[in-house]
């Protein structure tokens, strides 16, 4: 552990409102550079809102977000955002390689073509995510996990160093989830920063080094072990509501009697 951790993303008193209701209330936390951080919390805790606030898509009612020393809106190429996966039309006539090439589009000027350096980045991104053999396939021919890897590859090709992933594990089967875990661990080892909204606490504990626990307000932030203490989980998920078990064990373990 270095003596002073550098913080790539800093949030100060971030407040976002939808009309009257606060979606995020006075959230202050730091995301260490090169960490993989899970954003956790119950439904409606503001996990997705936090990601979108970082992108500058929600006007902040109060507070400030900084990426390094910049406002994130001025450093968009450094940010890659992967939404929950429903918005794409999988019948779109496009190959895997063309989708990954899209990552280079924002950095091109009008009429500028993809240069050798761009193509090299695309190749490297395809290779890193094991898509080289699938590069000429139509995206509709891929499995769910492969489709997601295409968009991760596009984010890599973009040259981003901070990855904002919204529920990346949703809808993946066991194998797909394992693969994604492996990818995220590799990225962490390479010093890339990942910030992902996740709803499975056990998965977060296994996959991520850091965590931010939200319930509209900030419950805890820091190394995942410290954040996911029983007391914190209790505050985030129960707060007076009647839940009988620790949410970590709330998956029904015995069959319902016939």
């Amino acid at each position, binding site marked *: 552990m270095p003596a002073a951790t550098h913080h790539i993303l800093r949030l100060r008193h971030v407040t976002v409102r939808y009309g009257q209701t606060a979606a995020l209330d006075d959230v202050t936390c730091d995301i260490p550079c090169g960490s993989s951080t899970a954003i956790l919390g119950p439904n409606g805790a503001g996990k997705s809102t936090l990601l979108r606030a970082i992108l500058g898509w929600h006007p902040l009612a109060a507070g400030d977000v900084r990426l390094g020393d910049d406002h994130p809106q001025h450093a968009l190429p450094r940010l890659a955002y992967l*939404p929950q996966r429903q*918005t794409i*039309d999988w019948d*779109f*006539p*496009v190959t895997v390689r*063309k989708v990954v090439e*899209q990552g280079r589009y924002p950095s*091109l000027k009008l009429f500028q073509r993809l240069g050798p350096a761009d193509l090299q980045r695309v190749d490297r991104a395809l290779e890193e995510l094991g898509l080289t053999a699938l590069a000429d396939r139509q995206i509709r021919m891929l499995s769910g996990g492969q489709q997601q890897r295409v968009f991760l590859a596009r984010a890599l090709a973009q040259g981003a160093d901070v990855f904002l992933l919204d529920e990346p594990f949703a809808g993946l089967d066991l194998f797909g989830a394992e693969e994604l875990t492996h990818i995220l661990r590799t990225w962490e080892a390479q010093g890339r920063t990942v910030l992902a909204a996740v709803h499975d606490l056990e998965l977060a504990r296994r996959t991520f080094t850091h965590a931010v626990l939200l319930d509209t307000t900030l419950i805890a932030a820091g190394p995942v072990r410290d954040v996911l203490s029983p007391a914190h989980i209790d505050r985030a998920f129960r707060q007076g509501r009647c839940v009988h078990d620790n949410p970590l064990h709330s998956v029904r373990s015995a069959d319902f009697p016939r």
Partner: protein
Amino acid sequence: MTLHEFFIAPFAYDFMQRALFSAALLSVSGGLLGCILVLRRLALMGDALSHSLLPGVALAWLLFGPSTTALFLGALLAGLLTALGSALLSRLTRVKEDAAFGSLFIVFFGAGIALVSKLPTRLNLTHFLFGNVLGVSPTDVQLTAAVSAATVLVFAVFYRAILLETFDPVFHRATGGRGALIHFGFLALTVLNLVAALQTMGIVLALGLFLLPAVSAYLWCDSFSRLLLLSVGFALVCSLAGILLSYHAGLASGAAIVLCLGGVFLGSALFSPRYGAAALVLDRWRNRHPPAPRRG
């Protein structure tokens, strides 16, 4: 009939040259726009837009008589009002955008029919609804050329932004793209092209020249750029065929062009090797009756 009589002789007439020229110009821009309409699932919205042009045309006719520029501006105003009106309705009220479009266009179309019934001669209604190739004036061709050139220019300059906005608007926005601008620009271009297509194709059929080549090409292509090119190609060939058909068989030009495009679409839908119905049925049949394994 010799080949010369069939293909060349009709274009000895000025009005046939103008009709061919304006149909070709519209094919290029319409073929491009149609692809975006198909990929963004805006086909029905385009149809609604084209119908909503009628009151603008009729009102311009009532006020200024048969002046091309007035008709053009009237239609443009009506189309933009519908597009903006439904965008506003869907943002300010509970009504969703498709319902807003549907409601507005039917009101506009009704108003248009009411206005047309006030016109001095009845003949004009069919002229507006179904187009009249004889009515394509030199001014019409100039306006069409301007609209078509503008469309091609926009596609050439903003090709990547259009592709990103069509394929993945969220990514486009996250990387600093201006989605709303592209969307409204696209709507405005569609209205402009529909207006330009008014004389040749008519209000009811204008969209056919945009939609049919695109949806036919969609059945053949696996890449966005090739989709655009093939769509324009289909539109060009069918415009020529349609105009010849309309000349020799004495059909309304818009209807003839749409019929040719319809033939291409039907053929593609049935026989496209990858995405056609025949291929799909054959594939299923093969899966149900696998060939007997060879012994040996």
